[in-house]
């Protein structure tokens, strides 16, 4: 592989980390709660704007703004699940889709009203230049994002597998009746799970704020990519989401380098269709396949 190929691979891995985190949120919501969430991109954008607002108006370092974004995102996620989504949990997929789409319109346009549609850019001091190792370059914001992604994924793993709340979440996902009969407040647990999903999504958005210029509908561009990653990794499978996030990042970057950016979209959707046909439980086979 040429040096440029290597650089593309590296860029793909770093960007893939952010995709992975964004998809992790979707994977939780999609796999655990069985909700086809088309407000996912919009939720990401909310995270972006929270970090932007704190960074731009209060001068807070964007990475210090992340905890605030997390709290807010948790609340938003909790409320979205608790109010509208709760009522359509067992409704057909298209009802869920339309409802979350409606939520997306609301979120995006609330952002539009508050922040105007202007493109916003947040620059971080000291991040103007890439870091280098030999001839390879690392964009600092992407590198940090990658680190945060690993940490957050670890935390979510801990939360889901080591804590009582996490166990209740997984239990409710696997068997709602069983969970209720053990005295789990499934309604709250689901709202918490959605909240956690929203937090991951929001962090992913927040991490992108120093990387891209943001505008209210930016999240839409991540929507489908997140679905691809989620299905590829197996729904509800954390490590699956992480690995396939990286895969998609790398595929995008390499196909962008060798075939051109216009066709890399095509390659990703092609992979998506193949995976849906051939391994709908995901590459790692542990995701739960949904049937209606």
């Amino acid at each position, binding site marked *: 592989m040429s040096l440029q190929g290597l650089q593309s691979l590296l860029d793909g891995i770093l960007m893939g980390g952010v995709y992975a985190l964004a998809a992790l949120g979707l994977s939780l919501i999609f796999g655990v709660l069985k909700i086809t969430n088309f407000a996912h991109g919009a939720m990401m954008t909310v995270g972006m704007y929270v970090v932007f607002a704190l960074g731009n108006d209060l001068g807070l370092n964007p990475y210090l703004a992340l905890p605030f974004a997390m709290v807010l995102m948790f609340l938003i996620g909790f409320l979205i699940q608790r109010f509208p989504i709760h009522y359509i949990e067992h409704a057909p997929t298209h009802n869920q889709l339309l409802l979350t789409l409606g939520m997306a319109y609301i979120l995006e346009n609330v952002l539009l009203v508050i922040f105007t549609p202007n493109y916003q850019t947040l620059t971080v001091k000291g991040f103007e230049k890439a870091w280098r190792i030999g001839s390879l370059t690392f964009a600092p914001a992407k590198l940090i994002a990658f680190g945060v992604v690993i940490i957050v994924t670890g935390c979510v793993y801990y939360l889901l597998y080591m804590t*009582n709340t996490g166990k209740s979440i997984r239990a409710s996902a696997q068997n709602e009746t069983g969970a209720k*009969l053990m*005295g*789990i407040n499934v309604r709250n647990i689901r709202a918490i799970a959605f909240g956690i999903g929203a937090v991951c999504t929001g962090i992913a958005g927040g991490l992108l704020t120093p990387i891209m210029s943001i505008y209210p509908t930016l999240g839409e561009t991540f929507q489908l990519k997140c679905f691809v990653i989620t299905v590829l990794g197996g729904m509800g499978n954390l490590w699956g989401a992480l690995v396939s996030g990286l895969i998609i990042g790398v595929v995008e970057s390499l196909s962008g380098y060798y075939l051109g950016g216009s066709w890399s979209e095509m390659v990703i959707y092609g992979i998506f269709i193949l995976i849906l046909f051939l391994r709908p439980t995901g590459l790692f086979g542990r995701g739960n396949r949904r049937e209606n």
Partner: protein
Amino acid sequence: MLTITDLHVGIGNLKIIQGISLEVRRGEIVSLMGANGVGKTTFMRALSGLGHITGGTVEFEGQDITHATSQEIVEAGLIQVPEGRQLFSLMSVKENLEIGAHTKRAKARMKENLEYVYTLFPELKEMNSQAAGNLSGGQQQMVAVGRGLMADPKLLILDQPSIGLSPIMTQKVLKAVIDIHIRGVSVLIAEQNIHDVLKIAHRAYVLEQGLIRASGTAQEMAENAEIKAMYLGH
């Protein structure tokens, strides 16, 4: 301990349970018998707060739980081992048991209860880290009963625990029920397999078309010619 008066339960517009009165006294094993589809499961689910109760009352330990949520009911000590076991199939046996101890009360006695479950079903200890979904039907039923015990029940409801089990497994489960009863837990058990269950029950009710058709002590029921003809079949 559990007093049910004129209970009505529906699913959608359908009226499934049309006025059942039933009682479980402290220290009893009571059996609810009936053929497939007479509404046993609907009735049982309603007791745990998973049904649409349209009339009547359910009283547990002097407390009205007719419209309580399933959490409140579990907290009060009325625990159900549901039909079809409803395990968390991707989680390990150990995790399944741990989740059983979800309430505060149960958490406080978790260690003790876990030990008891392991003495009751020693094989569970060996399967601790296996995913519950990979176990055989009988093993799964043991996990389900164990999980119910982890919730520290005062009254344990078992909904058709022998369904799909081999005769040996069925015996094992019923033996466990006796053991549990000896330990001071009252039991309400729904069964199609009347022959076996009447051997361990004190009293029994027969459910038919959403109504109690007959009731009495286990012995009376076992000797009732009509019931013999209908359910015991031989």
